[in-house]
């Protein structure tokens, strides 16, 4: 019973931790999130640009030794998984250098799994099928929650685009109608002026 409990408790430490936040990167700058990660941890970074300008960002992941693990240019969204080779402070940076005016909002989701001493896995043999089932279910539920969070952000972005399109259709059409009428009025006045000038001369 004690072994089971110990392994159950310690196993919960294995289960992926979910950490999802939205940060704002001002124009011409870079924002970084620092995270202390143990070695042999599987790290997954999921990022999406929520709003701002061209909706692109320059992500960069740097390890504790200063080596760049991942770098992309002008991405709208991405997912990257890596296994940490050493323990230490990892840097997750997002650069908005390509934009001189608009700030960008980036949503990032960091997931970790594993990473604690592997000797605990051996104790798994003491778990009954029921306990195993419960732990697996929990793992699945957390991954559902993580997918749901991703979809939530996607939906938010989508809704912003839709509302912007709807407003644009209205206002640009008003402008178009107004311009049409203004242009034909201008044409008539111009032609009149030409003939009036001719008459005077």
């Amino acid at each position, binding site marked *: *019973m*004690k072994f089971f*409990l*110990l392994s*159950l*408790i*310690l196993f*919960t*430490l294995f289960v992926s*931790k979910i*950490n*999802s*936040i*939205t*940060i*704002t990167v001002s124009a011409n700058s870079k*924002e*970084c*999130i*620092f*995270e*202390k990660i143990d070695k042999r941890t599987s790290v997954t970074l999921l990022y999406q640009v929520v709003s701002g300008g061209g909706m692109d960002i320059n992500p960069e992941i740097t390890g504790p030794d200063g080596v760049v693990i991942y770098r992309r240019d002008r991405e709208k969204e991405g997912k990257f998984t890596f296994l940490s080779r050493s323990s230490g*402070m990892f840097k997750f940076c997002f650069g908005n250098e390509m934009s001189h005016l608009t700030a960008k*909002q980036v949503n990032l989701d*960091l997931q970790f799994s594993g990473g604690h001493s592997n000797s605990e896995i051996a104790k798994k043999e003491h778990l009954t099928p*029921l*306990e195993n089932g*419960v*732990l697996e*279910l*929990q793992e699945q*539920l*957390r991954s*559902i*929650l993580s997918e*749901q969070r991703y*979809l*939530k952000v996607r*939906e*938010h972005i*989508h*809704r912003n685009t*839709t*509302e912007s*399109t*709807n407003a644009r*259709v*209205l206002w640009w*059409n008003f402008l*178009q*109608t107004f311009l*049409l*009428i203004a242009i*034909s009025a201008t*044409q*008539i006045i111009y*032609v*009149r002026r030409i*003939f009036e000038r001719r*008459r005077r001369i």
Partner: protein
Amino acid sequence: MKICLLFFVLATLFFSATNSFQIEIKERQEKCISEEIEHDSLVTGSYSLVEPKQLAVDLIIYDSKHHTILHKHTIEDGKFAFRTDIHGDYKFCFTSHRQQAFQGSASSQRVEFDFKMGSEARDYSDIATKEHLNPLETEIRKMQDLVLEIHEEILYSKNREEAMRNTNESTNSRVLWFSILSIIVLIVTGIFQAYYLKDYFKKKKIL
């Protein structure tokens, strides 16, 4: 039984303690982290200044209507907890002021921050002792709450999708009717122009 509970408590503490990240704040700068949170949701979190302590930092938490929920001046190590009233984007902002630097003339400060919302924020060791649940039952209880949360989020997404669908259908019909309006206006102004000029020349010729 006591040892089991102790292990459990320690495990949940350990589990929650290692879920934080750090951000760097420069002098006279404000950095905000925002997150969309449901209404009537428990939010807990902890913050601490990473050694060396160089700048004085304030923590301000804004709700989705930009009202201040919490304002802690010159934070050291601490925790916070609140329950949300409305759904929306909540902002956790860290501001640094130059005047109150601790010592030295360094220009940046690292702050370690961590927050949890909804079912993750709940203290299950507390619930376990109150309802006399063994660890397996507590895990199942955790899952129950998680499933309820997932269900609520799906319902909310459903409503949002409906609102978006209405907007899309409105856009669709607007594109059609406004284009027809533009064509009509174009034809009408064309015909009006032609008749007006014809009239105008007739008038001029007579005169």
